[in-house]
């Protein structure tokens, strides 16, 4: 279109203008350097972007940043109990920067609190601890039937296990075994190995008078903290200040085994293991089967064979197990319609 090529000369390239100190070759070098720097930075940015997107969509393991306050815990437990740390690194808590102390930190004066290489912690994490972050969920759980699951142990529902089958009266064996002579039957095996495995138990701490202290003795107030200071003073503690969970009281589990159930009586009810928490794991029907199975309440077995159970297993791969939401008919199905309606 332009017929005279000289018309295309710019101010920059016009021959009769004063010679610039900067040559075109130098400018070419500047362009090459900055373009290369830009492209390298673009590669770095895209690498970060792609990694972030892969983590968001669940296609890559998320990068875990150990919070500063929990670094010492993680460093030490990597040596002593690496499995515990591995569970934590696989949890949503780890992804969101929630470390050990956020859940395990205890206030001075709490019955199960003890000094542990500096921090004052409690092994058992109760819904009161969860409520520090998940206030709404803890309040909802507190109102639920699940929260009162432990109460069954003091109800007539437990009559069969503890009274009918659980004979603790005098017995007269025909041929007592030498060294193992006893006059009373325990009779609590059904309750211990049955009901209490799901419905939980009150955590028992050794008392200085030789007895057992439970939540009933501490008389917790509305905030879950003990109001009976005398009972607190009677807790037997070791040289580290750690209270000793009773191994002697029948029907009372050790603190270490206390996280086997979500249905514990408040406030000594431990939560499910938050160190392993992931939405897709919590959404498996097997979680319900932890309690809702067996001859007394066979809901899980009924569900497994029902149309709903069969459909759930069949359509599991289509469900949004990792989603933040879990809406029936949209993210998952009860077997009546597809989890993801075709758009």
């Amino acid at each position, binding site marked *: 279109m332009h017929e005279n090529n000289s018309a*295309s000369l710019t101010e920059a*390239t016009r021959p009769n203008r004063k010679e610039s*100190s900067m040559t*075109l070759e130098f400018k*070419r070098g500047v362009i090459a350097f900055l373009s290369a720097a830009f492209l390298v*930075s673009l590669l770095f940015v895209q690498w970060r972007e792609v990694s972030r997107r892969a983590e968001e969509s669940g296609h890559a393991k998320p990068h875990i940043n150990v919070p500063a306050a929990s670094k010492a815990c993680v460093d030490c437990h990597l040596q002593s109990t690496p499995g515990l740390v591995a569970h934590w690194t696989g949890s949503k808590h780890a992804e969101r920067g929630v470390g050990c102390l956020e859940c395990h930190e205890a206030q001075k004066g709490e019955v199960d609190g003890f000094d542990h290489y500096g921090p004052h912690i409690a092994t058992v994490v109760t819904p009161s601890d969860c409520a520090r972050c998940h206030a709404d969920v803890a309040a909802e759980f507190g109102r639920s039937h699940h929260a009162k699951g432990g109460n069954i142990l003091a109800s007539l529902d437990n009559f069969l296990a503890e009274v009918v089958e659980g004979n603790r009266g005098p017995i007269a064996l025909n041929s007592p075994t030498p060294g193992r002579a006893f006059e009373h039957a325990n009779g609590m095996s059904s309750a211990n190995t049955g009901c209490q495995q799901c419905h939980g138990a009150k955590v028992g701490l050794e008392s200085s008078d030789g007895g057992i202290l439970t939540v009933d003795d501490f008389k917790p107030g509305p905030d879950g903290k003990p109001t009976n200071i005398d009972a607190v003073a009677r807790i037997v503690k070791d040289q580290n200040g750690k209270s000793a969970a009773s191994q002697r009281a029948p029907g009372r589990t050790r603190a270490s085994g206390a996280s086997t159930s979500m249905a514990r009586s408040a406030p000594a009810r431990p939560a499910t293991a938050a160190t392993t928490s992931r939405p897709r794991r919590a959404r498996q029907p097997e979680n319900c089967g932890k309690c809702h199975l067996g001859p007394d309440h066979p809901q899980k077995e009924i569900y497994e064979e029902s149309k709903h159970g069969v459909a759930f297993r069949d359509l599991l791969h289509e469900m949004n197990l990792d989603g933040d939401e879990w809406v029936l008919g949209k993210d998952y199905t009860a077997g009546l319609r597809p989890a993801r309606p075709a758009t």
Partner: protein
Amino acid sequence: VSLSPLTWIRERVPVGPEQLRELTNEPVPNHLKKWWWCLGGTPAYLFVVQIVTGILLAFYYKPSPQTAYESVRYITEQASFGWFLRGLHKWAATMMVAAVVLHQMRIFFTGAYRKPRELNWLVGMCLLLLTLIVGFTGYSLVYEQLSYWGATVGANITDSVPVVGVYLKELLLGGEVYNENTLSRFFILHAAVLPATMAALIALHVTLIRLQGVTEFHFRDEDRKKPAFFNFFPDHLLTELSIGLVLMVLLSVLATVLPAEMGPKADPLSTPEVIKPEWFFYVAFRWLKLFSGTLAVLSMGLIVFLMYAWPFIDARIRKSRPESEASVWIGIAGALAIIALTVWEASVAH
């Protein structure tokens, strides 16, 4: 009398081979024999890729908060080659921004914006801003957590512009806050208004280049006895086609190896822990964190204004000091600052 189809057409469209040759036989300066000087056509090529893939994606996309995310998921997971088209669209957008930046750097450092090409610089600046805005609206359409909150943050930034900010925000969102009508507004902007404006500006950009010719560069090692120009057709056209083919291969590889993912669906009630815009806004995002509020927005506005006005500012400088190369040093500082702020924002979570 029977006429051949060609004759029939030529009677109605009086353009023959001679006219076509005249139209395409633009003399092209010798430096364009090197492919790295030919990247000006790259954004235009990627623009065409975006139009084609965008039309195909729009067949399935449904712009409303209830349907947007599911329709994108349908494209990604169920529609035939939907994942590939989405990947092409995503990566072509990234490469288009990069190509525009590289092209503009070349123009800036060689002073190709100077008289008589100031108007074309202004058109190019408009195309740069439109490319960024079309990227922003496209990112928002997916209705993921980050795209939703990115749009919300973007609207709030607009709000902090003094006097007109509140109106601009309402214009963008179709209300005071993100609402039912926002997505359809973004969609119309992204798929119709902005591309049509860009197409018109690209036509104007190319027309001005044709009228003024490509800026000539004469390097010292150049043989002055040889012709300074070569033919557009077929020599330069073949270079452009080769670049286009390489781009297509690169795009296909990126879309296949690193396909576009689905993040969590937007939840207006839950602010994500980390909010990140698309990468090409990292520089502005970091700037906003450094100088929060109105100061950051006003200073960014001033920088954009200076970029627009640079040909005229540069002319004033060179009028008083003809040998001045201040623009090169300012350009180096600006480019390094943009790279540093972008890398900084990419390196940190917050």
